[in-house]
């Protein structure tokens, strides 16, 4: 598949490949997405806004230019913003594919990186990888927020020629800025769509999930993805999810992050609980889905963690047929590309204690 190169969230001709629960495959337009929903379905989206997670800076000791991409955080708390997992690149910028970006200078514990007006400390390498560090900010939370907000840029992609601005990557639902890359399946939703869903008796709820980085350009690092990701489930959302499940309705996830959060929650609790949690799970072919019946997602190349997640919904031979359709019909991939809607094959596991 070719990458979508123009940052338009809802091109009128965006395609949708529908994979039905019995394995049938249909081509549609994504703007007609809700025609595949039923009254009584509950659509759940991730309302995280995207941080300008890419910060250009300088390695103080060597004077070398670096690009820091913030990639993970321990919680969603507004004040818990002094420590990040981060990926550090050497000289250059997004015009070079991440695969070809030089390594940063050798970082040792305690090295200072100058990011805008702030000095941050690279405290430790994670997984012994030269690009992956734990970064500590030393300033007050409001100062850290202001520097990220004013100095950072959204993570850029080599396949998109023009630099992305935040308004390109914020979904219409974007709320608190906690995602490191956009929860791009949510590009499909706008207020008009939400209104149309309501008119058809389709319910809507949100979670907030700190979507991490989707790929690093480094095969070793990519194997570690997805990192642990904090998420928040509002009380109103847990309530409507449990109510929908109890009456046999379908939960429709907008994007992989929603699947990860809800399934992580359900495996740890007897039902979907509200509150703040950390997603530590990996979803793949062997996962027994307990909550989500169908997913709207981007089109993903095999061997990525996103593709792995889709294997929980459909058998490999169905996904292989779908891949051929995506290729032969010229579907576009990546953030601004076309979409798939996959209904889970068979029933979801009825193991939750619902009321």
């Amino acid at each position, binding site marked *: 598949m070719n990458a979508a190169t123009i940052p338009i969230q809802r091109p009128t001709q965006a395609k949708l490949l529908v994979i039905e629960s019995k394995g049938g495959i249909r081509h549609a337009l994504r703007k007609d997405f809700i025609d595949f929903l039923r009254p009584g379905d509950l659509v759940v989206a991730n309302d995280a806004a995207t941080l300008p997670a890419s910060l250009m800076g300088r390695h103080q000791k060597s004077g070398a230019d670096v690009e820091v991409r913030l990639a993970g955080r321990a919680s969603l708390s507004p004040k818990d*913003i002094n420590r990040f997992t981060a990926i550090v690149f050497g000289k250059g910028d997004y015009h070079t594919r991440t695969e070809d970006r030089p390594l940063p200078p050798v970082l040792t514990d305690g090295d200072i990186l100058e990011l805008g007006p702030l000095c941050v400390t690279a405290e430790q390498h994670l997984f012994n990888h030269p690009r992956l560090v734990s970064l500590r900010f030393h300033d007050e939370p409001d100062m850290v927020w202001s520097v*990220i907000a004013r100095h950072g840029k959204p993570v850029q992609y080599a396949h998109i020629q023009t630099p992305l601005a935040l308004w390109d990557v914020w979904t219409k639902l974007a*709320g608190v800025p906690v995602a490191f890359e956009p929860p791009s399946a949510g590009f499909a939703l706008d207020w008009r769509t939400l209104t149309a869903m309501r008119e058809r008796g389709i319910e809507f709820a949100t979670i907030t999930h700190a979507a991490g980085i989707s790929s690093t350009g480094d095969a070793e690092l990519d194997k570690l993805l997805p990192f642990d990701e904090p998420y928040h489930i509002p009380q109103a959302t847990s309530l409507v999810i449990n109510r929908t499940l109890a009456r046999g309705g379908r939960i429709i996830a907008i994007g992989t992050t929603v699947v990860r959060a809800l399934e992580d929650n359900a495996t740890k609790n007897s039902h979907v609980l509200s509150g703040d949690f950390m997603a530590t799970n990996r979803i793949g072919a062997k996962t027994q889905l307990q909550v989500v019946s169908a997913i709207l997602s981007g089109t993903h190349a095999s061997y990525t963690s996103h593709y792995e997640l889709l294997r929980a919904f459909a058998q490999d031979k169905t996904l292989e047929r779908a891949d051929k359709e995506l290729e032969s019909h010229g579907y576009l991939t990546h953030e601004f590309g076309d979409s798939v809607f996959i209904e889970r094959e068979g029933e979801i596991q009825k193991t939750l204690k619902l009321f």
Partner: protein
Amino acid sequence: MQYGNELAINTGKNMNDNSKPVFNSYKRFDGLRVAITGGTSGLGLALLREFLRGGASVAFVARNDERVKQITLEHPGSHGIIGDVSKKEDIYPIAIQITGELGGLDVLINNASSLGPVPLALLSDTECEDLERAFQTNLFGAFRLTKALMGSLAASAREGRGAVVLNISSDAAINAYPGWGAYGASKAALRHLSLIWDEEHRVDGVRFLSIDPGDMDTPLHAIAIPDADPTTLKRPETSALELVEAISSALSHSQTKLLSKTKFVVEAREAVNK
């Protein structure tokens, strides 16, 4: 009211912890997250103080670096944000700081205003650039910031917290005062924007208010009418009190249907705990 002790009134229980009783000493706006543009003087500053007094978390946005720092220092618990709402490039950095620092948003007050030409001018004497400046601040700034924060506001509404946008209006938005062309036309547009937005988002639980706070003794008024007698003008603190009541009432209104839902939440939790 959702904030402070509302759940005590309805259920005698705190939603977050069933075992903990809720005390009546809670301030009325405990937990409320408010953002005000133009918060370093006049009405904006009076609103900042009033919401802080009520226990809310308040972020305010203004252009002057030094003023923002000074007001932040003088008002512990406030979050000062340096930015210019008339500049497109400033909007997202402002929105990130508001929602990042407050952890969400329940109330947005678009208060920052530009008079256009100073001294005030007849329309035919008004430079296009001055007219544009009035619209950039009073209309486009408010539009852009509200749009960037709509996701957070709607999330608050879905969670049963209520969500309100207050756009500060003026009698010049309705009456045709000679000399007030740029300001009046931009405020008229903002007023109509508020009315339409309210129609469109009422169903999502996000309410829009457009209120004329009256002629106040503020720096903006002094620039517009330098020889006005301050004793004939309203104190901004008085207007702020009235606006806070209007917001409070709109918040409870947008929560009305959600309060019955809250009851259901507690009943459902009790069912789970059995």
